[in-house]
């Protein structure tokens, strides 16, 4: 294995080789190494969650028993949700790429609290460990949403799973605090809020949500354990409790949580679009403000998960219209990204290919969200495969493509090596094709009335299920190819210079990979992070 690239300037070694002992990694306070460790851990989580998904889809090849029994299936879909949401989606881009890039984009040496950063990684590992141990105990079958009173009565390992997620939430809050303070306080003189790269805005908005919403998740989970293991009956109607109250508490966190999952990916898209169009964003402020808008207004929409739960019509109406409004922010971003390409100089590289995939899938998936907020439609779609397709369009079609785009884009910065374009584009094509074949049938299944979390389904739904399963094989091969190619390139790809893409963003104004202290000379803020109308003296 050839050693990773060394810094080209005299003397200083890159962060990858500066120290190579185990403890220099495991006890590091270097945000770059912590970022890589998060990427590695979340990648493993993604693989595990993906394998579970493949099993679920294989089970759906036939309407009745195929490979597992009902209870196993129910535990598996719960495991899939828990792993994908809390072990993968929520930490991957913020704690992975965000950790790596934030200080670099701000010209800083590290994040505000480097040791808290390391602690957040170990808390993540602890939470992941507890959750996976719970899996070995058989896990639980409540779904990742843990609705009461079923979660209080299910004869499964509810408490350990919930405990694991609780600990993961603590890690999330730690990351959030770190990034907020970093953004506020570690910008150099001369870099105002509107001079920062847009990815920072994405992470910043995400961090606000993490810090304010996750405590309520912690509370909800604690209450589930109290109900389940100590029979407190907080949500037990026979004891004067209200099951719908749990739904309110849970979704108060979990709706903003989906914005935790998408905002960082949107940040990646902003960066990739500008770099590979060699162009300033059509409206920097539109993207920046819409990130904040999504974060803040996203806190007001949770009741759209309760349209058929017995919530008052008045409340439902309010949540419905606010949900329509929050979509406007995303629409603004999409138009701004498109407009950024106008009169640009577009290079169709792998990251850019993923941007196109993102644009198409996210618009479609997002619009189905707008459709659901037209409430009578949600009455039909709620808890069917339509909803499953909707959120997979956003999570896989949005977040995962954003992650893969970001990994390809920043691979040179992280490892000093270039990704393989040809394999990357082939993988992107496989991902797009596989995705469409997997999830478009699920919209149709939902329309036809197939509910979600169904082990057994009416025979008339079989054809679409089979198509979806075949799609899942294509999709997973595309994802494996993409990540495989990235891993290969990380160790054996051609060496990159400090700025192989010719980007103006600040992280490219230092070596690829950077030295441990990130910058050898103070970051020069001229030209700006998106100024492609002037020559870049730094290349």
């Amino acid at each position: 294995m050839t050693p990773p690239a060394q810094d080209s300037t005299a003397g200083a070694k890159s962060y990858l080789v500066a120290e190579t002992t185990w403890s220099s990694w495991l006890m590091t306070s270097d945000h770059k190494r912590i970022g890589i460790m998060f990427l590695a851990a979340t990648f493993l989580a993604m693989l595990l969650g993906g394998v579970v998904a493949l099993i679920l889809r294989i089970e759906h090849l036939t309407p009745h028993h195929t490979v597992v029994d009902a209870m196993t299936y129910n535990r598996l879909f719960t495991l899939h949700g828990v792993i994908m949401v809390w072990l993968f989606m929520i930490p991957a881009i913020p704690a992975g790429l965000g950790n790596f890039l934030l200080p670099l984009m701000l010209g800083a040496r590290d994040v505000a609290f480097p040791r808290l950063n390391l602690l957040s990684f170990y808390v993540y590992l602890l939470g992941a460990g507890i959750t996976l141990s719970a899996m070995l105990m058989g896990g639980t079958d409540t779904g990742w949403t843990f609705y009461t009173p079923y979660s209080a009565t299910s004869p499964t390992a509810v408490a350990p799973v919930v405990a694991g997620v609780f600990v993961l939430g603590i890690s999330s809050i730690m990351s959030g605090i770190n990034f907020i303070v970093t953004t506020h306080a570690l910008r150099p003189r001369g870099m105002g809020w509107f001079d920062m790269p847009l990815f920072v805005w994405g992470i910043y908005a995400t961090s606000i949500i993490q810090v304010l919403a996750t405590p309520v998740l912690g509370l909800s989970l604690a209450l589930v354990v109290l109900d389940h293991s100590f029979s407190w009956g907080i949500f037990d109607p026979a004891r004067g409790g209200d099951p719908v109250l749990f739904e309110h508490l849970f979704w108060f966190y979990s709706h903003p949580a989906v914005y935790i999952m998408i905002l960082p990916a949107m940040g990646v898209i902003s960066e990739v679009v500008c770099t590979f169009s060699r162009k300033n964003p059509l409206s920097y402020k539109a993207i920046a403000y819409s990130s904040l808008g999504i974060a803040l207004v996203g806190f007001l929409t949770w009741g759209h998960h309760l349209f058929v739960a017995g919530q008052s019509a008045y409340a439902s109406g309010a949540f419905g219209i606010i949900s329509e409004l929050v979509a406007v922010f995303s629409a603004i971003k999409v138009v701004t990204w498109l407009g950024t390409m106008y009169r640009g100089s577009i290079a169709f590289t792998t990251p850019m290919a993923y941007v196109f995939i993102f644009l198409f899938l996210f618009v479609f998936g997002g619009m189905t969200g707008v459709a659901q907020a037209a409430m009578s439609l949600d009455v039909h779609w709620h808890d069917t495969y339509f909803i499953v397709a909707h959120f997979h369009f956003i999570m896989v079609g949005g977040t995962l493509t954003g992650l893969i785009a970001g990994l390809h884009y920043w691979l040179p910065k992280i490892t000093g090596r270039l990704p393989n374009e040809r394999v990357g584009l082939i993988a992107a094509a496989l991902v797009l094709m596989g995705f469409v074949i997997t999830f478009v049938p699920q919209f149709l299944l939902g329309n036809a009335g197939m509910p979600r979390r169904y082990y057994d389904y009416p025979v008339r739904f079989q054809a679409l299920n089979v198509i979806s399963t075949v799609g899942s094989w294509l999709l997973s091969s595309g994802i494996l190819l993409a990540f495989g190619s990235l891993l290969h390139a990380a160790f054996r790809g051609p060496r990159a210079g400090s700025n192989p893409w010719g980007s103006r963003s600040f992280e490219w104004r230092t070596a690829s990979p950077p030295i441990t202290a990130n910058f050898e000379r103070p970051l020069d803020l001229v030209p700006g992070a998106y100024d492609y109308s002037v020559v870049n003296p730094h290349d």
Partner: protein
Amino acid sequence: MTELFAETQDGVALAERDSLRRLGMMVFLASEAMLFAGMFTLYAAGRIRHPQAFADGVDHNLRWVGTANTYVLLTSSWCIAMAVVRLRSGSRRSALLLVSATMLLGLLFLGLKGYEYQWHLAEGDGPMAVARHDPGIALFMGLYWLMTGTHALHVIAGLIFLGYVAWRVAYRQANDRLLEVAAWYWHLVDLIWVFIWPLFYLLGRVSR
């Protein structure tokens, strides 16, 4: 806390460690406030649903303990605030005395709380008994244990934090900023108790 405070490469330490700490503590406290806000919301929902039971519920607790604890915490907040003032004006010794007073009062709070908890257990009204109560009362007592328990854990964490800060002030010449963020944390814990007190000890039967 790490000594690695970030500098920009133009040689000026623009990000002062202190402003990082203040901002970090503010964000953390916002997070904590959301945690307790969720619990207070639960209480509110419970009270609306079971007005009679929640009113009767205050009789399950020792009002004198709750009231004494309120005075104890309020005094301790005064102590820590004065400690910051003293440290700022240079009197390290009196600041440390005041921090010690704060910690002693915190311990007194925990002692009184522990006494009350033990009294609950003796009355058969402990956390395990929640399941046996009637509807309404079960929710009230469950919330009581949840909220006062979570609060007590935060008091314990606060005491550890104050102890650490006191050590730093005494032996590492820490400045008033570190003590200030500890004081902020302590004030939030106190403030939360000030809301717990009426809800669980004072708001008895409302006349028809």
